[in-house]
């Protein structure tokens, strides 16, 4: 039974392959519009949700796939580097949440600014950061994006409006939200809800885990954060709203495959079945892959080639970063102040110049 079905399928595919490749050449290079329905409807609070139908194009789908494949590869490579002790300290990985980063970028420009917490590697990449600079920073080298002095939690990119990369968070959002609402600031507060605050599940840390509603007078939208297109739609909608009316909250329902950081196994507070279940059913890269294949934007082989190429690119960046030099001893004192460290001070008699280098 099965065999015959396969044969018929194969027979169906064979003569058509030529035709498909012909049409593919046309469609993947063009910016023809493909309309896809988001995986789940948007739930909203105090606002009309945007439509589920998202407009995208083959180009965009391919970009999503490539960017997410690169991010996923980078995080997995960072995992191995950490275990090899080339990355030390704290390393918070973003794999599983890539759809949020790429979806956001598709909806905004580089003139819009992003600020985030410590899980910032992929946001940095999405903002235009380079793999080499990222790995160099993770390994503490001079060529890193913060000259090796920041580390995993302190990636910044001023030219692209990426304000970091911060280690200590806690209770800033409600206060910030109040001020944004008070002054009608065009701010979008994105909650990447991966359901766990390090080891504590959200229902044990928040009375109401419906974060999109927590803004009360501020409208909110709950989005399936594993669907890059839904994220893009929500962010486009949110940007229009924020520019006209003031702040809006976006809750991205997403998931992180790794633990909170590399020192957290990630399995003491959740089951392996849960993790693999999400990976099977909701993985963001798989979703885009299926869309691409369903709309004949590319073949299975091409996608695999892209992934291989991304792996190569990441490996090359790592190799280059491993070769790059460590910072100089004098770099310890640079960038403490804007005008250099050994600020001149005058002694009590106003004549003696005493440098404050310890």
């Amino acid at each position, binding site marked *: 039974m099965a065999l015959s079905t396969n044969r018929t399928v194969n027979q169906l595919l064979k003569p058509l392959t030529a035709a498909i490749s012909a049409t593919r050449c046309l469609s993947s290079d063009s910016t023809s519009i493909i309309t896809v329905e988001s995986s789940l409807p948007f739930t909203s609070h105090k606002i009309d949700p945007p439509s589920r139908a998202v407009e995208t194009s083959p180009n965009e789908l391919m970009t999503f796939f490539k960017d997410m494949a690169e991010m996923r590869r980078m995080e997995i490579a960072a995992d191995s580097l950490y275990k090899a002790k080339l990355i*030390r*300290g*704290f390393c918070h990985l973003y794999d599983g949440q890539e759809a949020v980063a790429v979806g956001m970028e598709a909806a905004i420009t580089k003139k819009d600014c992003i600020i985030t917490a410590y899980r910032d590697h992929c946001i940095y990449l999405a903002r235009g950061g380079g793999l080499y600079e990222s790995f160099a*920073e993770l390994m*503490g*080298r001079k060529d890193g994006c*913060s000259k*090796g*002095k*920041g*580390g*995993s*939690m*302190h990636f910044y990119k001023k030219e692209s409006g990426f304000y970091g990369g*911060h*280690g*200590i*968070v*806690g*209770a800033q959002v409600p206060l910030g939200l109040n001020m944004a609402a008070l002054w009608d600031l065009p701010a979008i507060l994105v909650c990447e809800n991966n359901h766990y*605050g*390090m*080891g*504590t599940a959200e229902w*044990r*840390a*928040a009375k109401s885990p419906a974060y999109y509603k927590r803004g009360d007078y501020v409208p909110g939208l709950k989005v399936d954060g594993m669907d890059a297109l839904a994220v893009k739609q929500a962010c486009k909608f949110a940007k229009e709203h924020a520019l006209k009316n003031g702040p809006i909250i976006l809750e991205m329902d997403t998931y992180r495959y790794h633990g909170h950081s590399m020192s957290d196994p990630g399995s*003491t*507070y959740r089951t392996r079945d849960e993790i693999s279940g999400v990976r099977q059913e909701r993985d963001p890269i798989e979703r885009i892959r299926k869309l691409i294949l369903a709309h004949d934007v590319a073949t299975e082989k091409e996608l695999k080639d892209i992934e291989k190429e991304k792996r190569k690119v990441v490996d090359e960046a790592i190799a280059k970063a491993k070769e790059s030099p*460590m*910072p100089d*001893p004098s*770099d*310890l*004192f640079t960038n*403490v102040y804007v005008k250099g*460290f050994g600020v001149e001070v005058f002694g009590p008699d106003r004549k003696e110049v005493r440098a404050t280098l*310890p």
Partner: protein
Amino acid sequence: MAAIIQGIGAATALTSPNSLDIKKSFLSISPRSLSVRKGSSFVVSSDGRLSYGLNGRGGRAEHFITNAVAAKEDTAAASTSSKPGHELLLFEALREGLEEEMDRDPTVCVMGEDVGHYGGSYKVTKGLAPKYGDLRVLDTPIAENSFTGMGIGAAMTGLRPVVEGMNMGFLLLAFNQISNNCGMLHYTSGGQFKIPIVIRGPGGVGRQLGAEHSQRLESYFQSIPGIQMVACSTPYNAKGLMKAAIRSDNPVILFEHVLLYNLKERIQDEEYVLNLEEAEMVRPGEHVTILTYSRMRYHVMQAAKTLVNKGYDPEVIDIRSLKPFDLYTIGKSVKKTHRVLIVEECMRTGGIGASLTAAITENFHDYLDAPIVCLSSQDVPTPYAGTLENWTVVQPPQIVTAVEQLCQ
């Protein structure tokens, strides 16, 4: 596992006859000592002698630990039955102290991020939530200002909370609570409210944790009037200080260090509490007084080995009490050696060393033969790169050089 004595009537696993004698004599004294709440303490010295007194002044049993660095020889196959006491790591010692106090006093509770079900990010509270319940070992949301405030409120209403900051740097978000409420409430209410809270957490420069997670908050908190600050450095003093901090009616900030959690030491089975305001004589000597605390103690002891080989005899004191300073022990030492070197992990500007320098100069100026030298970390945010991070903190060769220069 550890044997815990809870006053009379607890069975202990002591095997040697000598230990049993100590146990008997201890148990006969203990109910009286334990029932006196305010201001009395008892110090058990390492040879089993007991002495106790009021406010720690009378019971000044000199407490020498001659091998300050937790000896690795203990981990070799020495059988546990031949030596008294039990071996444990520093985070286990903290847990033991916490557990003993929670058993002893039902008002002691713990709160912090991931302390309950997760067991604590450094395993200090592992196993406590299953034993005492979710409310007594409370997992809080990520809001330091709020849960520190909650701890202070709990203290005001009669509980004895232990608030854990997952990293000391996070407590900066609670600075308002610590300064204004912890420090000032007893004063501004005219003595009506006391705040018997313990705020603890790991701080200090770790292994490439980045600038925000490598902060030394003792320098920021030291000016707050009304609080006490202690820094532990060995499993022995970690347990003793934890217990003393919980029993104290004043707010105490207990500074642990990220890199010291896995130090192993053999400590006694009998219960003991250390004095919060007392410094620890690590290595008596004649030539120079080296004052240090927390992780720098180990750098100093490493340098001391080199110094001894070069013919110097440094006296090393772990000051332990960062606020107030134990000027009695320090003064005694200064009067003996006439030279002081302070080695600390705080930054040069406004650190503990700076205050200590001022305090010693004011009080013991006549006894000093040379200006006080203070070795501190560089005044820079701690860089992530490993090599730069090493240059930020004081390393043993710098200590050796400083002593040589001081003793010329």
